[in-house]
């Protein structure tokens, strides 16, 4: 029997600093044993571990359409994430996955997709955007819009890539920062206000939103006001996790385990669960 707690060895292929305060780093990992490689979908997560330092869940930032690596962006918080930040290219760590459910790709066919994100929550939404914009998939979807905000330009993750996307015509990209700084020629303002201004049409529209709780809290009424039904608004939740497979019992909101039944939930589902988001 396969041991579901046994991490697979993955090698750090590339590692770079993602934010100017150096609290975020991005890793591209490759499987040491090619036979371990698996298929996954945008929105799923993996458990990364370093023996002696522990294990924690991270959303997959690469898209299944990008072959040969899996990407993760890690915020430095305590023991494990600090050890992850000190890794060098070529070192081997552990990975378990893919875990959890994924964005409702099937429902998005033929529809317009609006991605709303803030801070470093862009990870799995980057996966989604890359997946939808892949030449093999792009024809299946309508307009794709990305609204992304950060406190300041230096905290904006995947910035080079986003600036490339701005020039493409298959995705509408809106980048915003909280307050004007010198040299910034894009939008200024919080994500909820910017979303209200851009006012994406709710006709055939689905919104995938992920960001700090405060951003989600104020964006949700804007989306409802714009006419999006709660069934068309999805978010990815976070909770402290250990096992990642619905057994250790700590990540539940109501009867749902974020690791097993989630992490992606529609607002229609969440409205039925009393525990705070």
């Amino acid at each position: 029997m396969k041991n579901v707690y046994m991490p697979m060895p993955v090698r750090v292929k590339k590692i770079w600093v993602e934010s100017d305060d150096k609290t975020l780093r991005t890793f591209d990992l490759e499987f040491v044993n090619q036979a371990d490689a698996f298929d996954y979908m945008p929105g799923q997560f993996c458990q990364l571990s370093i023996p002696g330092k522990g294990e924690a869940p991270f959303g997959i930032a690469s898209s299944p359409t990008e072959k040969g690596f899996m990407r993760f962006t890690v915020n430095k918080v305590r023991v494990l994430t600090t050890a992850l930040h000190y890794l060098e290219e070529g070192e081997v760590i552990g990975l378990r996955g893919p875990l959890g459910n994924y964005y409702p790709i099937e429902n998005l066919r033929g529809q317009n997709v609006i991605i709303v994100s803030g801070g470093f929550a862009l990870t799995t939404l980057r996966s989604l955007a890359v997946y939808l914009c892949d030449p093999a998939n792009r024809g299946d979807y309508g307009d794709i819009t990305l609204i992304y905000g950060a406190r300041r330009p230096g905290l904006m993750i995947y910035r080079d890539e986003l600036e490339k996307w701005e020039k493409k015509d298959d995705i509408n990209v809106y980048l915003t920062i909280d307050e004007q700084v010198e040299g910034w020629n894009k939008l200024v303002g919080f994500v909820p206000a910017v979303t209200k201004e851009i006012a994406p049409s709710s006709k055939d529209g689905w919104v995938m939103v992920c960001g700090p709780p405060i951003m989600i809290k104020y964006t949700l009424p804007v989306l409802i006001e714009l006419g999006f039904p709660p069934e068309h608004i999805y978010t990815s939740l976070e909770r402290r996790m250990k096992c990642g497979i619905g057994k250790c019992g700590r990540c539940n909101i109501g009867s749902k385990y974020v690791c097993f039944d989630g992490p992606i939930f529609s607002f229609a589902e969440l409205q039925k669960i009393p525990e705070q988001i």
Partner: protein
Amino acid sequence: MDTLKLQKGNLENFLQKLGEEFAVFAPVMSDGIVSFLELRPGQKSVLDFPRTHKPPKDIFYPQTEVMLRYGRDGLQSTEYKGKPIVLFGVRPCDAKSFILLERVFIEPKYKDPYWVARRNKTLIFSLACNDPLPSCFCNWLDGGPFNKTGSDIFITDIDDDYLFEPISEDGERFLSGVDILKEATEKDIKKAKNAKERAESSMEKPPKLDSLKSSLDTLWDETLWDEISLRCLGCAVCTYSCPTCYCFDIQDESRRGKGVRIRLWDSCMFPLFTKEGSGHNPRPLQKHRLRQRFMHKFNYFVEKQGEFGCVGCGRCVSLCPVNIDIRSFITSVIQTAQGRGDT
């Protein structure tokens, strides 16, 4: 197959024989309390105990367990490789608890390899309760002092003998190969029947719990959580002594490049249980944590698994240092909902 019997004087002999093939866990007096421990040669089992302090779940799901070892030569998993386990003399509530735990550990998508390795080829001998305790409430939850759910062989104490009734196919196969057992007489069966009636009638009539789950659906913001949590010390004895609580933590321990990944029982009563790396805690107050425990047992578990996540063993009732009684909580939930006309 008919019911068999074992003379009480032959119990030790029987257990010794079992020990040749199985790792036998039975109630043993140790440090002044009765606990389920692996029987060592010559060690006596105590079958006239009312209820062990610690539930026997730790035999299949140890309180601390090494999951993986790591060192220079990589990672090795450490599933149980010992003899098949016999669990001898568990009470019916505890036997039933394994069925509930298995809904989690042997859930179809992810099977827990450590549980499976220990549980594989086990035999569970459960022992009828001739004298239920005042804190017992198995009869509230589809159980009873003579309930056979979860047992392979069901034992009844009838004064001079133990009756052995095969319940599962495994139990039947095992009993057919034991020559020390004799066939039970009609008189023996009658004695067991009387004991059953006596035990069942000694318990108070249970309240109807049909509306418990739906009542809890409506009581999320009720003040009853504040009231009950004011007393709670957050000591977690209710979860550690609970046969159906299964939450765990995973930790690494290492020294000089070698180490282990271990899992340990954890408890939703502790603030750290849900505290996130950012410092945010979705359950900051004891009231939230108590609500989680009760909701999990009587609402969420029902929603996911179709039955209550409690077997009514009464350990949390008798061990709680501030006398929080889950039974009065259950009745007050039903009454509060009825009083508001919600159900």
